[in-house]
């Protein structure tokens, strides 16, 4: 593989890894926020255990979202300086806004939520998880603004051999953004719903203690998956109009994009059907044991669909970095050497893949051990004598 292939593969692999964790974050954040709000209202042990159990899974998943995200941001500067050179005056703005007014706050509030148990006033603590949720969604918005600019460079004018920001509003009303943003957010709800369903079904099938907690979680997961799949399919099809108005041949003559799209639609409909059938029997689902292994089995499918969706969107952009303006090959950092890209490829892809595997091992262990062994929100041990 040459330098260009490696740089592209590096971005594709780290980006896909990033999204696997981000999509679950987007789906779980509002669910954990709702659970925590309920716990603050009722104060029951059941609500507390539910919040801490799903919160622990959410936070563990989040860890990999952060570290993969760090690598994503800097790759623009490392491998793709041609993009910044050509369109940095426009493309840099949504990225800057994402870091400053979304992620900066998200990370700070998340720290307050994780460490704020038994320390922050009850309702302020609840407020932090809602703030984390809102800023996570804001983060998704700005990243989609930046991505949509690559699909359709709205709001920019050519000035000599570079693009300049001309109309910030047009950047935000990009036809590539309008339906894609709700599509991505509802993909998050779909993934969140199916994960909550899957883990709950595991515990219900195994007849572990906490049957009530997981019955309630299963129902919540089914409703979330139902809303998520209906919206993700709806907004998915609604995208075709605006997207093909600016990228008419996005899915023609691009076999990989068409393949990704086809399988994603297939999976989307399958998940929609599953969620629809389950929502009909939502009242009895916790007791129907034969359902539970099937629910566990389909848990990975929404993740696969999410990655296929990105393959369709980004492969459908090739060979352009910015649609009909800048080729991917011309966006590569000039003078990037084989040694450099091999080094970063080994470092980023190697380390992040190992950590992703470790994180999934950890998440499945948390699920298996259940709500009895949750570190998040544990009562602090009595302060020991000062020994430092």
């Amino acid at each position: 593989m040459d330098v260009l292939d490696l740089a592209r593969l590096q971005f594709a692999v780290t980006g896909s890894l990033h999204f696997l964790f981000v999509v679950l974050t987007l789906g779980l954040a509002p669910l954990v926020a709702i659970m925590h709000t309920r716990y603050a209202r009722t104060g029951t042990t059941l609500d507390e255990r539910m919040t801490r159990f799903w919160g622990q899974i959410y936070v563990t998943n989040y860890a990999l979202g952060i570290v993969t995200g760090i690598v994503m941001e800097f790759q623009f500067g490392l491998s793709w300086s041609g993009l910044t050179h050509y369109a940095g005056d426009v493309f840099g703005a949504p990225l800057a806004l994402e870091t400053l007014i979304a992620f900066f706050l998200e990370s700070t509030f998340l720290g307050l939520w994780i460490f704020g148990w038994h320390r922050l006033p009850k309702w302020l603590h609840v407020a932090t998880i809602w703030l984390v949720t809102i800023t996570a969604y804001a983060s998704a918005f700005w990243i989609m603004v930046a991505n949509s600019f690559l699909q359709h460079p709205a709001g920019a004018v050519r000035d000599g051999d570079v693009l300049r920001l001309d109309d910030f509003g047009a950047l935000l009303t990009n036809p590539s953004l309008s339906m894609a943003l709700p599509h991505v957010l509802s993909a998050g709800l779909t993934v969140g719903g199916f994960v909550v369903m899957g883990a709950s079904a595991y515990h219900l099938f195994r007849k572990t203690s906490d049957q009530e907690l997981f019955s309630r979680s299963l129902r919540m997961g089914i409703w979330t998956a139902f809303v998520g799949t209906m919206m993700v399919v709806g907004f998915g099809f609604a995208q075709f109009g605006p997207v093909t108005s600016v990228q008419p041949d996005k899915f023609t003559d691009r076999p990989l994009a068409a393949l990704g799209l086809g399988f994603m639609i297939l999976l989307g409909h399958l998940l929609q059907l599953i969620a629809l059938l389950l929502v009909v029997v939502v009242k009895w689902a916790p007791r129907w044991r034969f359902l539970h292994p099937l629910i566990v089995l389909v848990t990975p499918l929404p993740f696969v669909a999410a990655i296929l969706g990105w393959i369709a969107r980004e492969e459908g952009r090739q060979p352009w970095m910015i649609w009909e303006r800048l080729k991917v090959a011309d966006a590569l950092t000039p003078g990037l050497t084989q040694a450099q890209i091999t080094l970063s490829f080994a470092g980023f892809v190697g380390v992040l893949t190992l950590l992703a595997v470790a994180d999934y091992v950890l998440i499945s262990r948390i699920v298996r051990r259940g709500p009895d062994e949750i570190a998040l929100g544990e009562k602090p041990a009595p302060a020991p004598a000062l020994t430092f």
Partner: protein
Amino acid sequence: MEILWFGALALLVAGYFALEGFDLGVGLLLPVTADRDRAIGAVGPFVLANEVWLIAAAGVLFGAFPACEYALSANYTAVVLLLVSWVVRDAGLWFRRRLFTRAFWEWLITLGSLGVCLAWGLLLAGLAGFSFPFGLLYGLLIAALFVMHGRRFLDWRLTGVGTPLVTGALAAVPALVPLAGMAGAVIGNAAPSATLTVLTFMVLPFVPVMAGAQIWVWKAFGKGPVPAYF
């Protein structure tokens, strides 16, 4: 407006050195720390709020000074070392109490912290045109300052003695010196005023929220029992 955004960039980078400095310093100190649970517990609630200063600084670089982004690709190896070390350090914190043995992740926290310090030395020296060995030395100097800062922070947080303010200011100096030297070049490479106006208009209303959230972290976790999540 270019000067205002350069100020924002300098503040974020300096803030990162002053804040993340003590996290990294405590990471470097782990092999000689007796009660590692308490040391990591002391910095734990601050890490997420501290490391995000650099992510925001990179955002300002991309948004307001995109032409300066070549600084990253021109120092490719140093930036890769910085990112991989940062990721390894973070993973050590998240996984320490949960996977394999604690000692394994504690060594990774220390190694990652050292890697970040050395990478900063190489990156900042590289930007100023100095040689590789000088960069390594500069990295060791940064590591030494961070160790001092980490010690002061632990003293303050765990025993209530002294303050990390002075060492925090010192920790920011290795970043501020090269930044001051490059100020002219960076400001001259700012994005056009249309972009800067949009950024200013959008970010300004959030500045009090950002400052408030950071202050809240210090108010909430500056004293009291040491939490045990990391």
